[in-house]
């Protein structure tokens, strides 16, 4: 068979996959970009081309920049905490001699719960007068009654804590799977060479975990940038918008107030952000791995 024939066959074989991609990915992307250039409120029959006006409004909208800041803060803090706690949990699990299966299943429990259930659980934990948190706080300081979800300084940390509780198991599991695959001989050799526990962790465990951690970092970052369910249930983006993420902002315009054009513009920004982050991540790790 000629090279040309090979190439033709390749296209024929690729065609089904490409057409599916075109329908479920390319078409919606093109459509949402086109929509973002319109003022469109379909239920009222409004459809005017406005060019970049929606983007211009986003650029000077305080609420949008607030959502950007909240999303960035939420992403950095929650992903960092999840990575640290996840690695710690996995290392502890690896050192455990008995009841590993029980520990694993308990660890996975938060990850298995639907976001809505997690949200409702934490709603009660943070309840100002009857919640678990304030019962515990009262043991330490009798008069203090922090208003976890109503105080603008506490609301975002409270939501982040709920997210960390929920997603740490994901990281822990990935890391644990990698640790199980490390031959015991590696650690024996380190011990023979006189490496302490700290040196073993920093010089051996962590470098071995690097590929897994980079993948986990990418997954978790992209998830966190699109965070929605916990703040939707716990705070509705409040108080004063301090827990309003970009997706919540887009949801408000797209689904709550049905401004399809303006909402699409904010959705395009979220999409562009996710693509940029993924590319940046791949470029950075690819380069280093080549060295």
């Amino acid at each position: 068979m000629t090279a040309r024939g090979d190439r033709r066959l390749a296209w024929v074989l690729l065609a089904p996959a490409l057409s599916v991609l075109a329908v479920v990915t390319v078409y919606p992307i093109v459509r949402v970009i086109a929509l973002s250039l319109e003022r469109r409120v379909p239920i009222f029959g409004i459809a005017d081309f406005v060019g970049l006006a929606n983007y211009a409004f986003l650029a000077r909208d305080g609420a949008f920049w607030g959502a950007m800041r909240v999303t960035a803060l939420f992403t950095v803090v929650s992903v960092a905490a999840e990575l640290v706690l996840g690695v710690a949990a996995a290392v502890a699990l690896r050192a455990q001699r008995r009841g590993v299966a029980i520990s694993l299943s308990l660890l996975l429990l938060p990850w298995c719960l639907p976001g809505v259930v997690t949200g409702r659980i934490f709603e009660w934990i943070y309840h100002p007068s009857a919640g678990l948190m304030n019962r515990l706080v009262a043991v330490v300081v009798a008069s203090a009654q922090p208003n976890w979800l109503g105080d603008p300084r506490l609301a975002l940390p409270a939501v982040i804590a709920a997210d960390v509780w929920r997603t740490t198991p994901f990281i822990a599991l990935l890391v644990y799977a990698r640790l199980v695959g490390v031959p015991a001989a590696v650690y024996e050799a380190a011990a023979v060479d006189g490496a302490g526990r700290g040196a073993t962790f920093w010089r051996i465990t962590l470098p071995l975990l690097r590929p897994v951690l980079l993948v986990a970092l990418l997954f978790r970052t992209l998830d966190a940038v699109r965070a929605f369910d916990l703040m939707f249930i716990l705070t509705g983006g409040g108080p004063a918008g301090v827990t309003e993420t970009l997706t919540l902002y887009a949801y408000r315009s797209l689904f709550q107030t049905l401004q399809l054009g303006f909402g699409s513009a904010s959705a395009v920004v979220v999409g562009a952000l996710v693509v940029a982050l993924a590319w940046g991540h791949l470029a950075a790790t690819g380069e280093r791995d080549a060295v």
Partner: protein
Amino acid sequence: MTARRAWIVVVLAALAVAGCAERRADEVRLVFRHSRMPGERDPLPALLRDFERRHPGIVVAHEPLPWTADVQHQFYVINLEGRSAGFDVLMLDVIWTAEFARAGWLLDVTDRWPAAERGEHFPSMVEAATLGDRLWAVPWVMNVGLLYFRADLLGRQGLAPPTSYAALAEQAAAVMRAAGEPRLAGFLWQGKQYEGLVVNVLEAMWGEGTDLVGRDGRLLPEPARAAAALARRRALLTRGISPPLVTAADEELTRREFGAGRGVFLRNWPYARALFEAGGSPVAGRVGVAALPGGGALGGAHLAIHAGTRHPDAAWALVRHLASPDAQRAIADAVGLHPTRPALVDDAALRAIFAGARPRPVTPWYQTLSATLQPELSAAILGLKPAGQALADAERRLAYFLRP
């Protein structure tokens, strides 16, 4: 799919086809969409059976909506915009009627509904069903914001329920001082960033003699007075009359606080009344109810007809039946949702409060208005922004969203 499962599908399909064939050709089939009735005793099946008995040849299927208001709204929008709604009669939150009417989804009922009968309902319920001098829905069940107060605590100070928010704050402060109990809150209301916050701030504005949307449809006709009303809400928190938990509170959270005896005044809907008087309630027999200064916000539901229905006459007959005095009384007796007719509210004091209810701005853009205001109002009551600036910021965003 296994062969066995495929067989089940085939049999089910055959049964469905057979079922359709059995139906009489002249039979009218209506579908009624509504939210679930609270409590155990759903009065709807009996009401619909009764309707079918009186209208031979009409069969009514009723299907409940999803649980939360947000999701219900989305369900309606998706199905109604698709033109094949699959229902004929729908239950609407009073704040959606103008929006759905403007979208062309509702049948104009002005000419079907005799003018004399409209007067049987509380005027605010009819006002909320009106857009452009036409009527788009019929009042079904009613809700109104109420001022609950601890009659025992007020009585001890020789105080009568307040008629202004300024007096309310002073009375609350006096009772708190006298009680000397640090966990007793003066005034509990809903300050979480959600629809309820807009309701509470609207009532505050009405108490100040101004409104969010003027009679001419202009947003914030008196910005200074609106800002003063909002600033007064902030002051309730800084003066310690309202506890910090208010800034994350919804109806249930404040209802539980007040119900546990930890509040002097509470703003809430009528449903809380029965819970305060229930057996074992620490506040049973000690709670009074009064009108909110400036009037309480209107809640509740309308019944409307889908514009695309194939059976407008049958649908109208169903709406009239469900909104009839007998049906409204049956619903009130079974699940405690209040009738929209003064003649059916037996308690004279409650009737007067209901008569003073005021609709939230009756505009097709209410969802946008409310969603845009929520974070700004929240910022104002938390003191992150001066009240005037918060309102101005909301106004600026709305100018973009609502531009003609």
